[in-house]
């Protein structure tokens, strides 16, 4: 039982990690809390559903398509709406709320209200040492999420794109002086963050059934995580994601969903009041 919950916590944490790291990346680079993040999660799930269950593409091809398409969608939103207003914090925040409402509303119209599920190519049960038995897809989803996150670390840490993003995050003006186009870097950062949310959606659609509002809960969780981890701090978010994953897995099983929700937001308030730099932050 304990092992079961521990592994579930790890899988949950890995998914949270994807959603939250995208959200915190966007905050770090654009100083915008992206309330539309859940919508991109939902769109990713829907895209995966239509690509696999309707068109009939293999699951991993569908995931790959998500990686190809969502950066473009993300960049388009950034360019079309967010870029012009991001210097006004409230406008930036509200615009993401607007996109959330708009896209979720359209989602209900286009995708309908029925729950959708995607089947994962690998089925069966996996017996873990310690007596835990887990559906194979759950385990695989967790592993894929970790692999994607490793890719993000590589991208941000080791590539030219990552250098641009980090420069803009530290100081957009200085980055411009170094010859980096801050606008374009922000578009790339937004595209990357949004793609991570969409990938998470694509993965989750194989575990739980999805509908146009399915992004709200992951978005809330991700929001709690990025505050715990310190806004803009990716590694902080990774750690906080697993903490929340375990809280949800153990706390959720022991205390129920409501208690988890209460504790999550309570923690947010405490952190914001007493340690706004998050659990990893200095000072």
């Amino acid at each position, binding site marked *: 039982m304990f092992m079961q919950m521990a592994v579930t916590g790890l899988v949950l944490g890995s998914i949270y990690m994807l959603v939250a790291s995208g959200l915190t990346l966007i905050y770090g680079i654009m100083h915008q809390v992206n309330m539309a993040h859940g919508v991109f999660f939902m769109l990713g799930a829907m895209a995966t559903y239509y690509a696999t269950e309707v068109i009939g593409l293999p699951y991993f091809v569908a995931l790959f398509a998500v990686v190809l398409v969502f950066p473009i969608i993300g960049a388009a939103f950034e360019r079309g*709406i967010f870029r012009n207003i991001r210097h006004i914090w409230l406008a930036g925040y509200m615009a993401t709320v607007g996109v959330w409402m708009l896209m979720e*509303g359209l989602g209900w119209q286009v995708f309908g209200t029925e729950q959708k599920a995607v089947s994962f190519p690998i089925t069966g049960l996996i017996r873990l040492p310690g007596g835990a038995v887990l559906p194979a897809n759950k385990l695989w989803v967790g592993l894929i999420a970790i692999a994607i996150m490793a890719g993000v670390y590589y991208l941000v840490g080791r590539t030219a794109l990552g250098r641009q993003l980090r420069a803009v995050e530290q100081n957009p003006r200085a980055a411009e002086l170094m010859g980096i186009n801050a606008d374009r870097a922000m578009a790339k950062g937004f595209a990357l963050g949004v793609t991570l949310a969409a990938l998470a959606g694509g993965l989750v659609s194989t575990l739980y059934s999805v509908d146009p509002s399915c992004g709200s809960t992951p978005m809330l969780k991700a929001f709690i995580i990025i*505050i715990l981890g310190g806004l803009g701090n990716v590694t902080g978010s990774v750690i906080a994601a697993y903490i929340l994953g375990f809280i949800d897995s153990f706390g959720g099983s022991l205390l129920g969903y409501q208690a988890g929700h209460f504790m999550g937001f309570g923690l947010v308030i405490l952190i914001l*009041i007493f340690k706004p730099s998050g659990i990893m932050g200095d000072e």
Partner: protein
Amino acid sequence: MNSRLAPYLTALAVMAALALVPPLIKFIAPDKWELTAHIGIKILLNVGFGLCLWMMLQAGELSLGQGGFITIGAYTTGILVAKYNLISVVWLGYLAGALAAAVIALMLGYLIVHLKRIFFLLVTWSFAEMLHPVLTSFEHPFGGAMGIIDIPAPEGLTLFSESWTGYYYLALIYGFAVLWIVWRIAGSKVGLITKSIGQNDTLVTFCGLYVRKYKVMIFVLGCFITGIGGGILASYLTAISPETFTFFTSLDIIMFNLIGGMGTMAGPIVGAVILSGLNEYLFAAGYWRMVVYGLIIIFFITLLPGGMVSLPAALRKRFTRKTKKQEVGLG
């Protein structure tokens, strides 16, 4: 002397005109009155909520938790006058609701007023989010997921043959009372201090004023007034549950200011009228409602950031000189 009285006379005239609406409609089109009254009640209460937020905005506090304070006012009233019958006078229930909202705002406000901008917004939102699991989890005293039912109308309202007519007048008084309070403050030296805090709180400190005191004061007052509105809503709806006031309630109250414009007091009033009216019609539109909502937000933010009250000036500017963008509102 004349100019000092002018605003009062205008307000009284508008109030009198609105007070004449019920008999007039009942005379012309009696079957339309009930619906009109319900819309009117929403609008007038929302004007109050919007103005409270506007007042806080002056001090640089943008709360996304006002729905939470409505909930606190409504639940306190419901618990005291309906569920446990601890208070027999409904009006006192409203007062208790307002006090509960104010006390909680005092404790929360004291801890969070140093937070600025997005952080204040996030923490007030988180606070409102925390209420939902508490209300759902405890049968006593909150009534669990079912909430509280059979909340009575306040004494005296039964004089009206139709309850909605009574609530219309109650909401009318509420809306204008809030208008009066917020207007008095805005025009006073306390209002000047509040506005200055929104502009530069460090300088206010070095004027020898304790910024925290003023911010907490405005936050508490705003939540107190909002709490009364919550109590009124509780009786008006007769039943409340954890789902009655949500994130979208809080968001609406910000939207009133966004749509109307935050620069002047007229903004939230105009915004509350437009959006509450629209909400009534969109209610039947199902999921299109979200689409329209999203479009409205995006429209105002990108094209009319100063809100509706800036529309005349924006149009004038557009047609006289072909200038590109205007920089009003949204500080």
